[in-house]
């Protein structure tokens, strides 16, 4: 199992290197600077943590790994949230009148998600007794906010029929997929702790690694594809639209 985890981790790093090449050659940072920073930071931290965990290059104590892991997690989590706000801004760029409403909804959503996160931190089960315990609870709280914001983003786009750029859609989808799997995995690890057995621990680790690799593939596909997710839409016939306009006008003037 642990070999499989290592290979999946390594595969993820290879995918991130390919994605970094795409980001550089397609100048993604000019359109999505936070996303570019998020991915490049993830690449750096994954590589560093992989080397530290395997001990091939440096032999470090568990304390060093612990601090490195949580410091990099804090940075990537912050950048992940910033990326979501960046996608929100991109999506609303053509809709000035929606921005006010979106801000309002966003504010209340962040408040509600923050409240839920606080409840989780306060009432979380102390299954993990190592120093990781409180940090797991904190990560669960932040992931709840992240997942909630992705869902809010999709709900908002669905209600207002906002056409997505394929790249923005892919970025949001990838973050949403990874964050929700990671949320479930971390919540489970926090609950069961190391006492829950290595098997349970390994399964959650593998789930989150696979989810991240899948997200990388989604990001890769979306960044390499055409600009608009909805460009293949069939437009109605002119006669049909005329009939529509007439019907609609009669309806609204009643």
């Amino acid at each position, binding site marked *: 199992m642990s070999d499989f985890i290592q290979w999946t981790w390594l595969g993820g790093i290879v995918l991130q290197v390919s994605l970094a090449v795409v980001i550089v050659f397609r100048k993604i940072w000019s359109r999505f600077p936070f996303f570019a920073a998020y991915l490049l930071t993830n690449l750096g931290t994954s590589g560093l943590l992989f080397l530290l965990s395997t001990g091939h290059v440096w032999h470090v104590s568990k304390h060093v790994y612990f601090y490195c892991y949580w410091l990099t997690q804090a940075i990537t989590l912050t950048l992940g949230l910033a990326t979501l706000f960046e996608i929100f801004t991109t999506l609303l760029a*053509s*809709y*000035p*009148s*929606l921005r006010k*409403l979106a801000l309002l909804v966003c504010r209340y959503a962040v408040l509600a998600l923050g409240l839920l996160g606080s*409840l*989780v931190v306060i*009432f*979380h*089960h102390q299954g993990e007794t190592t120093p990781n315990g409180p940090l797991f609870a904190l990560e*669960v709280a932040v992931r*709840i906010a992240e*997942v909630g914001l*992705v*869902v809010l983003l*999709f709900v908002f786009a669905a*209600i*207002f*029929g*906002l*056409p*997505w750029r394929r790249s923005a*859609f892919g970025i949001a*989808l990838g973050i*949403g*997929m990874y964050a*929700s*799997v990671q*949320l*479930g995995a971390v*919540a*489970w690890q*926090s*609950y069961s702790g190391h006492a829950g057995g290595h098997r349970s621990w390994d399964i959650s680790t593998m789930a989150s690694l696979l989810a991240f690799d899948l997200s990388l593939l989604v990001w890769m596909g979306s960044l390499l594809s055409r600009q*608009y997710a*909805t*460009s*293949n*839409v*069939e*437009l*109605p*016939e*002119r006669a*049909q*639209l*005329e*009939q*529509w*306009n*007439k*019907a*609609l*006008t*009669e*309806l*609204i*003037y*009643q």
Partner: protein
Amino acid sequence: MIITLIVVAFAVLALAAILGYAFRGLRGHRAESSVRSVDLRTIRVLTDREDETFLREKVPAKKFKTLKRRRIGITLKYVDNIARYVTAMQVATQQFCESADPAAAHQAMQIMDLAAEIHKQCMVFRLKLTLEFMFPALELAPSLLVPRYQAFRESVNRLNAIQAQRPLSVAS
């Protein structure tokens, strides 16, 4: 344990919602974007308050509730069609937002903004209809679709005029 279960359930539901939205976008977009024809007489009857008052007076209360709910069900489908129509226009207009011609770009932005407003009004209308569905005795004020749709149509026409060489396939 309960908190963990709630969090895991939240994560699973969120993942299902996200994937559902993504697959719906990939598979169903073509089918959804097709605009259906509208039976004018049906719509007229459906949205007529006088007709509703007549029904209320002539038909037993229980029967009236059933009839009103049926009418609302059909009206909701019509509101969905309005939203689809506007979405189709948004898709057609999106490309002009980045047009080199500033007038076309400005007009396209205006259309996108109005389209969002109409979606907002459709949402309000849906909420009102849902409330009336739950409590058939209610008669809520109609939503503000009129000025929004009028402005939307005019903007589409202006963009059509600007893009005379490459017109949008929209009604005048």
